[in-house]
């Protein structure tokens, strides 16, 4: 348990620094230490509830998270997560390694930061998004002003989030970067609303996935307990030092870690029976 605790603290810390989230790091490392991949995924799913809900709490109170948009999108992510977790419960572990490597590969896409718009301008809202009351305002501390915004393409965002939920449930991760891309590129959320709302959604999506793993008998408390405690401690400290590190360091860290994790997962996939 001590080893798992230390791994989880480091994974939580690096996950917060790189924006990958704890799960994507924890699972490959635990597998490297001999934990069966399905057990690692199941325990990670519950761990994510702790790390995401802990930080979501303060963003909801500061009213940056859009709770209504979150509930609308959660209808899709939980269905995706349940399907994903069910698939994982049945398929051979070998496939999971390859899916994991493929998913990590897509996270490189997030490096092209030029796609992000801090505050989308002149969003023309469609009727469905308006009907869902997807708009609002929050006080942006960095900009020092109140930001008003409207979202669009709610109809398209739903299925996109189902895919995100599927990946999350299947691999035991938050898939936060993937969710944020959908929020910003399709729904046109401002950057801060997008990342905090994604964080909020991850908690429910993880619960949906965890419920399946619970029923499948893949869930072990002596593995999950040190992971939950460690990852939360790590994520909290990671959030604190994030602002002190230069962007370049973070990018190099990201490149090295993601490459190492992909190599590790491919190795496991190729050598597993």
């Amino acid at each position, binding site marked *: *348990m*001590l080893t*798992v605790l230390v791994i989880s603290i480091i994974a939580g810390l690096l996950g917060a620094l790189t924006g990958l989230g704890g799960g994507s790091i924890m699972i490959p490392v635990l597998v490297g230490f001999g*934990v*069966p991949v399905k*057990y690692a995924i199941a325990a990670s799913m*519950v761990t994510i*509830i*702790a790390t995401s*809900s*802990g930080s*979501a*709490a*303060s963003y*909801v*109170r500061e*009213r940056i*998270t859009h*709770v*209504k948009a979150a*509930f*609308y999108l*959660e*209808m899709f992510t*939980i*269905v995706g997560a*349940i399907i994903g977790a069910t698939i994982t419960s049945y398929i051979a572990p070998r496939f999971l390694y390859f899916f994991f490597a493929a998913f990590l590969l897509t996270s490189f896409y997030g490096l092209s930061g030029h796609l992000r718009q801090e505050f989308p301008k002149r969003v023309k809202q469609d009727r469905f998004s308006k*009907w*869902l*009351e997807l708009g609002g305002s929050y006080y942006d501390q960095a900009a020092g002003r109140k930001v008003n915004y409207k979202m669009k393409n709610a109809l398209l965002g739903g299925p996109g989030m189902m895919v995100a939920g599927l990946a999350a449930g299947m691999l035991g991760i938050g898939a936060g970067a993937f969710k944020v891309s959908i929020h910003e590129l399709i729904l046109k959320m401002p950057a801060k609303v997008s990342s905090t709302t994604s964080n909020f959604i991850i*908690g*429910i999506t*993880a*619960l*949906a996935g*965890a*419920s*399946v793993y*619970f*029923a*499948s*008998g*893949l*869930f*072990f*408390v*002596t*593995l*999950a*307990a*040190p992971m*939950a*405690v460690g990852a*939360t401690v790590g994520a909290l400290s990671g959030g604190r030092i994030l602002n002190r590190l230069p962007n370049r360091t973070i990018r190099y860290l990201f490149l090295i870690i993601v490459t190492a994790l992909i190599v590790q997962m491919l190795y496991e996939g190729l050598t597993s029976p």
Partner: protein
Amino acid sequence: MKRKFGEEDLDLVISYILILGVLASLALETIGIISYYSVNRTLTINLQPNSALSGAGFFSYAGSIIHGTLVGVWAPFEILGLGIILLMITPYMRVVASVVYFSLTKNTKYVFITLFVLTILTASLLVH
């Protein structure tokens, strides 16, 4: 003058549910790990299939654990289990709170949306 419910009330309630749930569950996990060590003198992770959490669905497992702690069974395994139950119930409770809020403010479409989320989660937790 009687104040009407606003969205800021919902946000406040949700944030308290989340923070209290996570803190309480992490505290239980920490106590659980320490007592696991003090009873077993080892921190070996038990991955025997018979030690997996499961049983007859989430709610009945939760019921039996909570009943156990009420009658005074504070074995390490039960404390760890209780912490996990609490962690899983935390996001569930914020959905319940939202259903109540949207019903009180008579926002029909969001009553349906939150009820949909609640129904799927409940069904998935009942399956075993």
